């Protein structure tokens, strides 16, 4: 059997399978957040809102929507897999409980963060 290095399969067979698209979406969602952060950096470089160019003001809403979509996909998928990476041995039931607790903690934390930023 000297055919260890033979490649019979088309190297990119997996890109055509829908199961792997979910993975791409999960990873690319990080890029959407990066776009939003980059936008924030550019806007914050201007001393005041009045001095910000019109084009940056016009694309504010679409960029925020892109950032929100990216953040939601990334956060939800990341929190969903989090119980699997805990260095603890959990049963299936404990894993489900951990998932619920992580999501609950995320919601509560986000609520307080929201209140802290937008309360006044």
């Amino acid at each position, binding site marked *: *059997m000297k*055919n*260890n*290095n*033979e*490649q*019979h*399969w088309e*190297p990119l*067979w*997996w890109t055509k*399978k829908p*199961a*792997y698209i979910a*993975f791409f979406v999960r*990873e690319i969602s990080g890029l959407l957040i990066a776009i939003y952060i980059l936008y924030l950096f550019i806007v914050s470089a201007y001393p005041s809102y009045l001095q910000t160019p019109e084009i940056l003001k016009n694309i504010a809403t679409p960029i925020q929507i892109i950032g929100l979509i990216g953040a939601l996909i990334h956060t939800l998928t990341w929190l969903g*897999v989090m119980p*699997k*990476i*805990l*260095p603890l*041995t959990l049963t299936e039931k404990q894993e489900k409980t951990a998932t619920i607790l992580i999501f609950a903690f995320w919601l509560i934390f986000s609520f307080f963060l929201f209140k802290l930023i937008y309360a006044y």
Partner: protein
Amino acid sequence: MESKIKFMADSKYKIRLTLYNRDLKKFTSTDYIVKGKKDLTVLEALHIINRNHKISLSYRFSCEMGICGSCGATVNGSPSLTCSTFCKDLKNPIEISPLRNFPVIKDLVVDIDSAMNKMRSALPYTNLVVKKSNKELLQSPTDLKKILQASQCIKCMLCYSACPVYNTNRNFIGPAAGALAYKYQKDNRDQLKYKRQNDLNSKDGVWNCTFIGECSNVCPKNVDPAKALQKLKAAGMLHNLKTILKPNEK
């Protein structure tokens, strides 16, 4: 007798065999019509094709009950054990091809040596073998429970076939070897943890896994290699931290 034959052959399936043609250097498909019982497995369909069409098809099988892990093939695009996949659950035509990510030897038989070597590199033994100790090492039911899921692996190689990381990097340790390493890392009787974790943290170790999770989806024994690899990453991080803080401790 007549009625029995009629009962036995009450379903008809179109099987599309996609096999590697060495002369053309590409995969070619051939369709076969298989008549059989309603709960016909894909492996039984292969038996019928081999018998009725006399094509001397090569494929591996042994127990025919999902225990030995020999009969893996790509069925309708997904790596599956042909003996436990029923034709009635699949979309027609049923496309059968060899396991992906492995070199084809003939028809549905693939060369799994590379993956087997990866499993050997995971040091799948406790130090009882290394030290030749006579001391009895006990394992409690709680300790066993920790590694029971990872112990169910039958080395069917479906996880390697589903892994795109293994497809792009053949040096990657891979899902089954990762699950095996995890099993021994969590074994309370094992004392090779330091060396094994060092190997797992290396360039071609667990950190190559991107956590797509298809290996766990195709696993017929619910071993969950993806989870094992993520846990090894977390353990690897703690291991590195420990190595920095206590460099002399092994």
